């Protein structure tokens, strides 16, 4: 079955390539889009918008208690002050991880995700295993990520069924007193902002 799957993938690749190109050509020829427009969009999401944005939000929340409070009260407004927002970026809600409560986000119906602060979602987030299991067996899913949560920690899973987008604010690692926001941001992993991981510790190799 292994080689069949590879062949299928290879043929899907060329098939999809051709079909996507066909669509683009048609839209260009009919004057719906300017040629450079597509490139700008790809460039933006491939290179410019990514989890680094969210890491900055989290790092600021770790050092600035007023910002932190504002972030949990009105995520959209607080995050906008850092220059992040836009499509799929409206109605951002920040979720606070505490020793008692661990938050995890999913979109079981499709792949809704806070693009403005995390960029485009990884394949696993959009996959059937995650979408089907995150709401029913979050601890099992965390095990797939090598994460073991204490037995009595409450797990809150948030299914993004509307135009709210969720950003998990993980707990600040110990041993980071006095660190700059920029240095702290380096510790914040994408997975920790979805809820399937934790931030790096000061000792971890980057």
């Amino acid at each position, binding site marked *: 079955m292994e080689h069949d799957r590879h062949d299928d993938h290879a043929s899907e*690749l060329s098939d999809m*390539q051709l*079909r*996507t190109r*066909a*669509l*683009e*050509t*048609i*839209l260009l*020829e*009919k*004057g*719906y*889009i*300017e040629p*450079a*427009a*597509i490139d*700008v*969009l*790809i460039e*933006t*999401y*491939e290179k410019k*918008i*990514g989890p680094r944005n969210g890491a900055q939000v989290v790092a600021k929340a770790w050092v600035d208690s007023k910002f932190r409070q504002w972030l949990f009260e009105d995520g959209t407004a607080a995050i906008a002050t850092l220059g992040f*927002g*836009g*499509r799929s970026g*409206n*109605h951002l809600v920040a979720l606070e991880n505490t020793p008692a409560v661990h938050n995890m986000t999913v979109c*079981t*119906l*499709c*792949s809704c995700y806070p693009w403005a602060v995390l*960029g485009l979602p990884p394949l*696993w987030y959009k*996959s059937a*295993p*995650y*979408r*089907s*299991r995150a*709401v*029913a*067996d979050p601890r099992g*899913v965390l095990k797939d*990520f090598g994460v073991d949560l204490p037995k009595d*920690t*409450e*797990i*809150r*899973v*948030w*299914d993004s*069924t*509307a*135009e*709210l987008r969720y950003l998990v604010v993980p707990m600040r690692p110990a041993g980071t007193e006095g660190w700059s926001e920029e240095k702290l941001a380096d510790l914040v992993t994408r997975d920790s902002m979805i809820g399937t991981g934790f931030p790096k510790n000061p000792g971890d190799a980057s």
Partner: protein
Amino acid sequence: MNGAADMGGMHGFGPVVPEKNEPVFHADWEGHSFALNMVTGVANLWNIDAFRFKRESLPPPEYLNLSYYGLWTRTLELMMLEYGVATPEELKTGHAIAPFKKAERAITAAECDNMVRCARPFSREATEPAKFKAGDKVRAKNMHPRHHTRLPRYARGHVGEVVRIVGCHVFPDSHASNRDEDPHWLYTVRFDGRDLWGPDGDPTSTVSVDAWEPYLEKL
């Protein structure tokens, strides 16, 4: 609709397999598929709810067999056909075939750059007061519409607690089918893991969904 996309609570898909250093796009065409979808959104050819509905209407074998961006391309093809932007022959040949209707104007690169910065909120003015308040116990209706909805099967019929009043938002169930925004109050409703999954459910887990007022009834 109860389509293949409504996956919450399903078994059999295996473990979650994260890919180390996963690129944003696994192939160039994926980036193009993504960008084309964004652009058609800006051009307002159709709305996002109609697009989602079209995607989830794909027959389950097709839905499950396509990759993520494969789904986007496939859905885009169907939307272009349905909305008269392309003919089947044009899709086959990969070119516009004269005579065709030229677009009113072309979306520019500057607009695309701008789009990622500007919010396009789905919130609308409320015309009625909200029926529920934070702390209210509500039941998600046992509804099975054939049309688009954002109430997942696993939540239907279950009792949860309103934890937040989000505001008045465009209602996808209406917006997908007939372009009518029909805004309704939107709430974040939290359900207990054991209510959703039965006595063997994880007692330490809760699941929240964002539910529009028409999905909910007072307990």
